[in-house]
């Protein structure tokens, strides 16, 4: 029972991280119809930027803010320079561009920083706590992880539901041409969408890196889980990203705990296949019937 509980707690913590990755994918997919394969690699770059700040002796929280800010800037610049030229071409072009960008970024990081594992600090202990005599596999850092991703999700929801900017962003996501006809300036909103998405990815990377160590490809596996979560939850639903993240995190934790950790990536793929067979549009996607 205690083993099951520990797996569940671990699954929730890692599920929240996966949810943040999925949220980044969803934000980009639903506003620009691009599947961003470079999401993980971009977050890896922002983490190296933060690492540079921390290595110079700065406070952890400064590094934290720098990583998120770097995500905003990096996302915006990438959208303008790399994505905009392929935006209105066939979707395959954009997919190949983001995939190429992934390989380019990991190559660059390898060339600059080398492949060595670097230790990235955590603001709180990553060791599980003793609670009333029993060992609980839920560290203060896990608590921070859950809170940070919840704050991100609630913040996004507040912006999307409660502000004029959010109304515009949703309009562009759901009906770009109608939005333009109603006077919405679409281009800056697409840039903003990318900025927010990459910043969400940067947060996820900061939450992964203390227990994974910093290397040029430390985000690869978590990106696959992020895709799994996005497919399970629905590629265009932010709520789906959260639920998909938790489903993915928990499933992988149980598989890892009861069947062996090496099966986790395979379990993620199985989850994708099952999800696509049973509910291809995802749990929370609202497939609006478009009459033409």
């Amino acid at each position, binding site marked *: 029972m205690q083993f099951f509980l520990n797996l569940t707690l671990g699954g929730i913590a890692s599920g929240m991280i996966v949810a943040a990755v999925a949220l980044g994918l969803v934000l980009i997919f639903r506003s620009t119809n691009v599947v961003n394969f470079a999401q993980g690699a971009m977050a890896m770059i922002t983490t190296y930027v933060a690492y540079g700040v921390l290595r110079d002796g700065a406070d952890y929280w400064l590094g934290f803010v720098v990583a998120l800010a770097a995500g905003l800037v990096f996302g915006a610049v990438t959208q303008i320079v790399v994505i905009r030229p392929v935006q209105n071409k066939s979707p395959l072009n954009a997919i190949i561009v983001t995939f190429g960008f992934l390989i380019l970024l990991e190559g660059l990081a390898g060339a600059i920083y080398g492949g060595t594992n670097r230790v990235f600090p955590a603001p709180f202990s990553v060791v599980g706590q003793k609670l009333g005599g029993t060992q609980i596999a839920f560290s203060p850092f896990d608590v921070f992880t859950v809170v940070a991703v919840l704050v991100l999700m609630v913040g996004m929801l507040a912006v999307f539901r409660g502000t004029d900017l959010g*109304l515009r962003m949703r309009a562009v996501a*759901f009906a770009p041409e109608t939005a333009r*006809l*109603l006077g*919405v300036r679409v281009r800056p909103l697409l840039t903003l969408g990318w900025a927010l998405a990459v910043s969400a990815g940067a947060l996820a990377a900061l939450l992964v890196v203390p227990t994974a160590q910093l290397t040029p490809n430390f985000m690869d596996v978590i990106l696959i889980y992020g895709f799994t979560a996005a497919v399970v939850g629905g590629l265009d639903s932010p709520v789906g990203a959260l639920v998909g993240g938790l489903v993915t995190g928990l499933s992988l934790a149980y598989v890892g705990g009861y069947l062996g950790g090496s099966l986790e990536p395979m379990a993620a793929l199985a989850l994708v296949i099952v999800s696509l067979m049973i509910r291809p549009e995802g749990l929370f996607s*609202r497939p609006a019937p478009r009459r033409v």
Partner: protein
Amino acid sequence: MPVLEIDDLSVSYGAVHALTDVTFAAAEGEVTAVLGANGAGKTTLLRAISGLVRPRKGTIRYDGEPLEKMSVEKIVRHGVAHVPEGRSVIEEMTVEENLRLGALWRFGRRERGAVLDEVYELFPPLSGRRRQHANTLSGGERQMLTIGRALVSRPKVLLLDEPSLGLAPIVTAQLMTVLRDLTASSKLIVVLVEQNARSSLSIAKRAVVINLGRVVVCDDAATVAGDTELRHHYLGY
């Protein structure tokens, strides 16, 4: 008096000529009906005016100002509102959100409430459904919402693409009455694209008949409605 002038307008999709040398003018306070069969180029005409497609040649002027090279967003800000075909409500949003979206660029937070209330007054069925998602609306209500959403920005030119498509005759009649009154009272320039020639001619002052991308007739609506041969030939009634 401001007018919308289309002069010598040609639009092509690759090698296909959708519109060739189209010339007409639409005046303030009047409905100008654009009629023609499927594929005549009516929708393309509206898309060219609102900037969604670029003309190959020709000019589009509103109040003397050329629109044909402006971006869609800028044309909207010059007072041209386009209600596209197919009841383009944003289904994932509520009725109120759809309307607010139309008013965003034009009005600040404080004025918006009053502007939206005018639309609810004009189309009472929408009023009770403010918080409902637009995908729950009936066909007629959707059409009210898309027209209302265009009106909240207080446009000077209203482009309507097949507003009666799929509506019951009685709903169409109501809609046409609202349109006629609105056009007169707010001094709108309305360009009404329709296949339903009979109902649109009933409220139009002028009529433009398009066939295969060319203007066949441009005359008073009453004259067009009275020309039996023309009606049989191009309008199918």
